[in-house]
């Protein structure tokens, strides 16, 4: 048994602090029965044990290593009745790495403030063995030959601090201020590579080196909002500012393969900031007619210094940063009305303009006529206009029939030199109909159908720097002509008072067209059945089962010529891929109170997911080696028991069984040229046992 000292410090410190701060009050409360009309507080302290090192179970909570962990949670709530002053101090998972603390103090209807702290760890779910040094820093040293390494822990952690202030102002006005600061540190899986170069080590297909991205950044968000709430008019306006500061701007390499010597430095995400002013409002003209709106203007800038050491001569006039600027304007209005008791209407319009005003400069003069670049940076602007009309009519027996039309128009800019097809405009129109029954003691539900049709302006051909057309065979997924049909059914049935059943079925089908290659068809289905049964006031049970099935069919061509001619030979065939993800999941839960002082709970969840990659040659004579399916299975069993020792104290026991299995082949045969291996245990079983003592007080 091991104890994880990194989790230990807050465990004892927080428990001691809480007992010191609230001990006397708690002592008083223990002498009398709790007053159910007063808020109640709770503190629990205990320990848990993880039976085995793992990659998945502890990915986001830090329960990665076998050993003992502290379990501390508390929720202290006080209200001073005379003034309506609340004090709340919440601690959750305090002994674990995903801990959070929040202190909240407010005088209801007058003022309030809070301070909160939260950590989010993320461990790479793989076991990494590497001889690369400098991981987590912007300077990596890569072995030039395959070298046996030692275990490397790749993780990131976000440490957030939040501050908030609220004030109710005279005349139905209020002020709200929120500030959040987040520090993110660590390293994440990254690499550099090229198809050329020698083969080093195991089955390496080219030259690839393990190059973890160093993470060391600060993110800040500030929001100040003033609101007005009247009977008819409500307003909310203010400022929202963000700032991202990356403390590294480039990843530099020493050593490594000669074939990759030009791949240094690799630029890291640049720091950037944004400032938005916004105003939202709503006005109720009559009890049945209301309009709401939002207008917002934002300016995002990016003037972080370029990475240094670039081995390409920059053109004269290029400064030390992009001078990036993106202006966003949003305007939205929506009107709802019920002109007749049974008829409701809705109309809305949204315009969102993202105008990238970054100056276009020629960064280098290295482009030739056949280059797929011209040396210019490429700001990307787009506009979206969305309109919606909807009408609903109340029918007898609690039914309601509604229908509507949505239209979305998008306009994109494009660069003169392109390697991917673009479209200046896309238009999508959707027609919706729904029959809903919301009011019934026994059966409620809805059946809806949506048909969408997307097309747009002619595809823009890809072109080289000299204007020569390139390959123009693919309609990109998000720009292609598309017909979509979607049916959804939801039924809630309560045949008897203790039993309720819920059925959910969703089926969507897409058909893509426009060009010879690219996505062809898509399909998504979800079927789900839920049931819950209340045996008595003491016992309740739930169960559910869900099948989800998504598929997309797409086609491509091997070695199409630069001018977009697919040879369609056995050696360079046209081929299709049918990608399917099928998941069967079920869950069951039981809650009970076998006798007065004991509460028990049990939850089981299981998922069996299969990813299929069916590749098929369209051109006769071509052979394709199939890709194996990937099967993933997840099982999670939670058992809990809570035994009261007194009215306000007791013991809680928890048991978790977590099993993850996969036959994913993504990394199994892969070795980086530097010798780094990235592997995942194909079966991971973890047991967690926790025991804690809880104490309630007022």
């Amino acid at each position: 048994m091991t104890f994880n000292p990194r989790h230990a410090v807050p465990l004892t410190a927080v428990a001691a602090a809480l007992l010191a701060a609230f001990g006397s009050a708690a002592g008083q409360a223990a002498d009398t029965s709790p007053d159910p009309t007063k808020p109640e507080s709770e503190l629990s302290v205990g320990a848990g044990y993880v039976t085995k090192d793992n990659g998945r179970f502890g990915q986001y909570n830090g329960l990665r290593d076998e050993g003992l962990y502290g379990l501390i949670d508390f929720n202290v709530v006080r209200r001073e009745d005379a003034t309506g002053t609340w004090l709340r101090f919440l601690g959750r998972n305090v002994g674990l790495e995903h801990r959070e603390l929040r202190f909240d103090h407010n005088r209801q209807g007058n003022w309030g403030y809070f301070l909160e702290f939260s950590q989010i760890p993320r461990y790479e779910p793989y076991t990494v063995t590497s001889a690369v040094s400098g991981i987590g820093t912007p300077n990596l040293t890569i072995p030039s030959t395959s070298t046996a390494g030692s275990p490397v822990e790749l993780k990131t952690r976000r440490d957030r601090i939040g501050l908030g202030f609220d004030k109710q102002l005279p005349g139905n006005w209020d002020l709200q201020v929120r500030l959040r600061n987040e520090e993110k540190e660590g390293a994440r899986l990254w690499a550099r590579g090229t198809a050329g170069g020698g083969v080093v080590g195991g089955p390496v297909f080219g030259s690839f080196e393990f190059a973890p991205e160093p993470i060391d950044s600060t993110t800040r968000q500030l929001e100040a909002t003033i609101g007005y709430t009247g009977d008819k008019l409500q307003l909310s306006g203010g400022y929202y500012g963000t700032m991202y500061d990356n403390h590294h701007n480039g990843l530099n390499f020493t050593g490594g393969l000669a074939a990759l010597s030009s791949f240094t430095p690799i630029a890291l995400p640049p720091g950037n900031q944004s400032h938005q002013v916004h105003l939202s409002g709503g006005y109720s003209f009559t009890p049945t007619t209301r309009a709401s709106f939002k207008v917002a203007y934002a300016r995002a800038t990016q003037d972080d210094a370029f990475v240094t050491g670039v081995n390409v001569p920059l053109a004269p006039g290029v400064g030390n940063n992009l001078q990036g600027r993106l202006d966003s304007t949003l305007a939205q209005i929506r009107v709802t009305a019920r002109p007749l008791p049974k008829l409701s209407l809705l109309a809305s319009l949204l315009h969102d303009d993202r105008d990238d005003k970054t100056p276009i400069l020629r960064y280098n003069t290295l482009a030739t006529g056949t280059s797929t670049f011209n040396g210019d940076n490429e700001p990307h602007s787009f506009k979206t206009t969305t309109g919606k009309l909807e009408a609903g009519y109340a029918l007898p027996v609690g039914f309601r029939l509604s229908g509507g039309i949505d239209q979305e128009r998008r306009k994109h800019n494009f660069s003169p030199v392109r390697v991917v097809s673009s479209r200046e405009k896309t238009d999508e129109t959707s027609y919706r109909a729904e029959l809903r029954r919301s009011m019934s003691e026994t059966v409620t539900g809805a059946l809806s159908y949506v048909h969408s049709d997307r097309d747009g302006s002619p595809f823009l051909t890809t072109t080289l720097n000299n204007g020569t057309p390139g390959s123009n065979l693919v309609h990109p997924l998000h720009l292609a002509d598309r017909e979509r049909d979607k049916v959804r059914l939801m039924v809630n049935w309560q045949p008897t008072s203790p039993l309720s059943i819920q059925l959910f079925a969703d089926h969507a089908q897409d058909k893509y067209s426009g060009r010879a290659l690219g996505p062809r068809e898509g399909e998504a289905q979800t079927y789900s059945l839920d049931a819950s049964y209340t045996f008595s006031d003491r016992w309740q049970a739930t169960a559910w089962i869900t099948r989800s099935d998504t598929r997309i069919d797409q086609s491509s061509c091997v070695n199409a010529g630069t001018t977009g001619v697919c040879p369609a030979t056995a050696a360079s065939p046209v081929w299709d891929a049918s990608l399917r993800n099928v998941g069967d999941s079920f869950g069951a839960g039981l809650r009970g109170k076998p006798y007065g002082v004991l509460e028990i709970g049990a939850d089981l969840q299981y998922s069996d997911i299969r990813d299929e990659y069916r590749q098929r040659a369209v051109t006769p004579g071509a052979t394709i080696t199939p890709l194996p399916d990937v099967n993933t299975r997840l099982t999670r069993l939670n058992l809990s028991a809570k035994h009261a020792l007194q009215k306000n104290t007791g013991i809680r026991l928890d048991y978790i069984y977590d099993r993850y299995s996969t036959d994913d082949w993504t990394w199994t045969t892969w070795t980086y040229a530097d010798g780094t291996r990235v592997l995942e245990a194909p079966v991971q079983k973890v047991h967690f046992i926790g025991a804690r003592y809880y104490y309630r007080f007022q």
Partner: protein
Amino acid sequence: MVMRLATALAAVLALTSMPAIAQAPAPEVCKACHASSYETYNAHKHGTKADARTPANRGECATCHGDGTEHVKAGGGRGVGGIVNPGSKTLAAEAKNSICLTCHQGGKRIHWAGSKHATRDTACVSCHQVHTTRDRVRDKATQTEVCFSCHKDKRVEINRPSRHPIPEGKVACSDCHNPHGTAGPALLVRDSVNDTCYQCHMEKRGPFVRPHNPATEDCAICHNPHGTTNAFLLKARLPFLCQQCHEPTSHRGQIASRTATSTGAGTLARGCENCHTNIHGTNNPANISNERTFRR
């Protein structure tokens, strides 16, 4: 049965002994039959008398449930005496919500009217528990239980191997969505998909010397934020995802393979990103082929 009759009688007696100026039964009268609701109401913000805006100062129980005089006189019962129960299955959602909106109309609920939840007859009490000191949907650790009562597909997706830390309670539905209505799409808390994602992933915002246009436009073209079986919540495994947009010249149209050829380089490990490292965009000013292809 005897106890219930006695309780009802006590309630009637309490009502008849009230001063004539009373417009509706006092909470103590309601308590006779609804003790648990009375207790949680008093422990709740609604029961805070020091705040002039609360039901405690606006008519107590009658603020939300209407005048219960006839209800009490009749000895209680579901719907008897015109008592209003916002949890009733036979009361229209709009009628239920109008009770809550009397006080809760501003702030994040400005865009409620006409929002997807509003037009789909979602009632405030479909998600919120009023008579409790701990509303499940307002607690990040339990919020998903409420949302998944309708959004079944998301219940499955958040448990996929590639996901946000939603089961751990570190990311909640309300971090990205405002269920009370917004001006933008999908009830997102910010004005677009990307603006919402940038709250936590601001490094993807740029602008870059060389942007990857789909990433600039809509993160959801490539990612399913609710969870997938592919690394980084990608909607499809690489190289297939990239082949949905990219022309099949050079190596881009190659058949996915696990064999020791260049095709395997786009299929194994990080797939296409084995070489195309900076896939969201690069700010490297060199801006030649290696930057156009996001390699450094």
